[in-house]
């Protein structure tokens, strides 16, 4: 039932927290912390679910997502976007860029799990 999650996030403590939460439920978690080559990493690892932070060093999460949505093999990839900015504007931008789900930090652990689960079920 559990699958492969790729987490692109630059804050080490958050990476550790999410890895912990998902691993315990049986997910395989890969992480990457740089925005510049994030899209290539996604293609290489072809995860079941992508968790993508917005504020990344080198390249913004929105740009990476737009890139992914433009390529055929990642067109349908379920993507959960995380942002710490939390304004309506950010939610709209995420939707327009093609995010499947959007979450504002800080989140509850259960929320993250639910979101990842629901994304794999629908796909």
């Amino acid at each position, binding site marked *: 039932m559990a699958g492969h999650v790729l987490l692109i996030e630059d804050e080490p*403590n*958050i990476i550790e927290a*999410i890895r912990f939460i998902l691993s315990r439920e049986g997910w395989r978690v890969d992480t990457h912390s740089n925005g510049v080559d994030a899209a290539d990493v996604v293609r290489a690892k072809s995860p079941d679910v992508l968790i993508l932070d917005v504020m990344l060093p080198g390249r913004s999460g929105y740009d990476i997502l737009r890139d992914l949505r433009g390529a055929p093999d990642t067109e349908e990839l379920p993507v959960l976007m995380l942002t*710490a*900015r*939390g304004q309506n504007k950010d939610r709209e931008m995420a939707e327009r860029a093609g995010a499947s789900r959007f979450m*504002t*930090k800080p989140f*509850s652990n259960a929320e993250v799990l639910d979101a990842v689960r629901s994304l794999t079920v629908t796909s």
Partner: protein
Amino acid sequence: MTMLNALAAISILYVFFLFAVAFFAERAARRGRGNWLHTPIIYTLSLSIYCTAWTFYGAVGSAARNGFEYLTIYLGPSLVLIGWWWVLRKLVRIGRSQRITSVADLISSRYGKSNLLGVGVTLLAVVGTTPYIALQLQSVVLSVEVFSGAPDGMANNQPTALWVAVGLAIFTVIFGTRNLDANERHHGVVMAIAVEAIVKLAALLAVGIFVVWGISGGVGPVLDRIDASALGRWEVQGGRWAGLLFLSAAAFLCLPRMFQVMVVENDNDAQLRMAAWAFPLYLMLMSLFILPIAVVGLDVLPEGSNPDLFVLTVPLAFGQDGLAMLSFLGGFSSATSMVIVAAIALSTMVSNHIVMPLWLRFNETRVSVSGDVRNVVLVSRRVSIAGVLALGYLYYAQSGGGAALATIGLVAFTGVAQVLPALLGGIFWRGATRAGAFAGLTVGFLVWLYTLYLPSFGSGAFVPESWLETGPFGVMWLNPQALFGITGIDPLLHAVLWSFFLNTIAFFGVSLASFPSPLERLQGAQFVNVQQATGPRSWSQSGAQAEDLMVMAQRILGAADAQALFLREARRQGLDGHLPMTSPEFLEVLERELAGSVGAATAHAMIGQIVGGMSISVADLMAVADETAQMMETSARLEAQSRELTRTAAQLRAANDKLTRLSVQKDAFLSQISHELRTPMTSIRAFSEILRDTDGITREEQNRYASIIHDEAIRLTRLLDDLLDLSVLENGQVSLNIGQGVLSDVLDRAVAAALAHGDEQVLMIHRHRSREEVILNTDTERLSQVFINLIANARKYCDAGRPELSIHVEQIAGSVNVDFVDNGSGVAPEAQDVIFEKFARVSDQKAGGAGLGLAICRQIVSRLGGEISYLPGRGGAAFRVSLPLNQALAAQ
């Protein structure tokens, strides 16, 4: 008595004859058949009003008393005409081109249209001419007396003088104010005067011929008689003669009546060219028989006979009644022609410079109807004529005639001639000013009044006798007849010398000392540089005028509007399909239309130029210039307003841009803060939930997660501290704790603090302690904060294998530079500009700062009166803190 009746009848017939001459001349001129009226001979003859009854009768008297002296009166004008004809030419050209109506008008016009000067000259003319008119009346009365045989019965003669005055007034009113010709010409009057000139010359010549050939028996015997007589002796009184010569020449130019016939009635230069030789000839003929008549009269008439009347009494004594009658008509002609022209000239002055200005001032609102003003002018002229003659009559009646009157002629000459300096200066010298003219006239007039006019009434009349002997109040040099102690010259000569001398000095002195107004300058230029053109062009074809007006109107109003206007006006005149006649009504309408576009003055000048064919007057030009100036001023004001609006708009735009930028910056800042707060909170929440919810978590995991929570909480606290610090530094009142400190101590503390946490990489620090012994007067805590930040940054971000930091101190010109240079790869060039901005975190997040450190440093250093900068090209990251030494700090 029959003689007297015949005389009356002949006089009346003669007067009717003159009326007829004037009437037909006037009618011919009006019907455009008066070309012969413009002939030079008529002009020349009209100049003969110079020879008044005073000359006609008095010259013989003068010769009988003073010998050849009478010649000076004839020589003066002759010299002017022969030697100064170019002065006269200039005068008549100015008169024509400026449409001068009188000598007062000339002076007033030349000096910036000053009505004050006009009034002054007018008064001078009235004062100087009134005794002269009285003299003419007296001469008529005396000549009538000769025929009546009554010996000097003055009481009976008042009516004669009155009737003569009334008759002259009527004649002058009829022919002097028939119409208001723009150029003030009186063809009827001039023609009548020309006829009278012939009559008086003929009369005098006839008497002379009778005396020479009828009484003396030829030229030879007459010359013998003259030689035998005392009068024949050529006693030259140089000074007096020169004075009289000058006086008569000046009077010829300045006398109102002479100005009238010579300048105002002049049509063209040809008239003057002939007069230049013909009038001296006329004068010569007039003077030819004066001395023979005087000598023979003294011989043949009984002792005590009045020599002033020899011209009449000699023929009468020899029973030549007809000749005596002719002689009477000659004298009568002399008297009447002078009075008529003088009355016209004076009335023009009085009316134009005194009555009309007053009337206009009191009736400003009623001037709109042009016919109205025209009638007022006519009435004012007629009343002025009557007034002038009444004044002359009253003067005669009051003075009672007699010798007092006879001497007043030269006195009056001298008064009127005071205009000469202002007149000649005005037409030849552009530097002459109104103030100068006014000063000259005033001084001349006062000196004349004091030295000649008042004493002429006899000592004791106006001037106390003592004044003439010892001077006023005993001040000898103020003696009216011996000013400044100059005695022993003829009183007349004395007055002429002093009045003209002081007049001229005042005129030139004040002119040089004063500045002319723009109008005076323009007028001066026009008068001094009067064009060589002769006479105004005449426009008679109304068609051509209407066409020209149409062209002009189209240019100003636009083709469609102009055509519509002309069509409408033509239809109103019943000339459908043609151009309208240039009637006054049409011109008025057109002027109003044009005025709406180009201003009233300009419109008036433009129409005037086309219709009148006249040159634009200076006043017109000035008005046009005024309008233009106003328009330019308005335009300049509008331009300034427009510039102001543009500037305001630009300012508003800039302000708006700034607000927009600030708003964007504020959003970005809030977003940044949100991010910086939420990130540690995310970790805290996640790990605290893990600790709470997860079963079977290991002890190490528990410790690790708790310390993460702890670190993130500290990070949050630090972030809030930094934000508050920055906010206070940026906006609030910062209390600095200023004290003395040594730089090396501050650096020691900072290094210790920055390196305190051992869990980060090791940083080698190089210092030169000897250079750090600098005493600072500053807030050492704050400065230490800056240093800690810089050292900590080096520790966090220096990417060299073995990180090293050099702290270099240098004192330069009143300030100390503290450089922090590490051996890493430094700050990327594109980031160097922004590292001091808030949240400008350029490297990746490994050190976990919020990006406020350098922003805080910049604020602190600036509060301490120094500055912090990034030094590019120094190998690694290099920052310089520059602080002032030993001087007041810029901080609060």
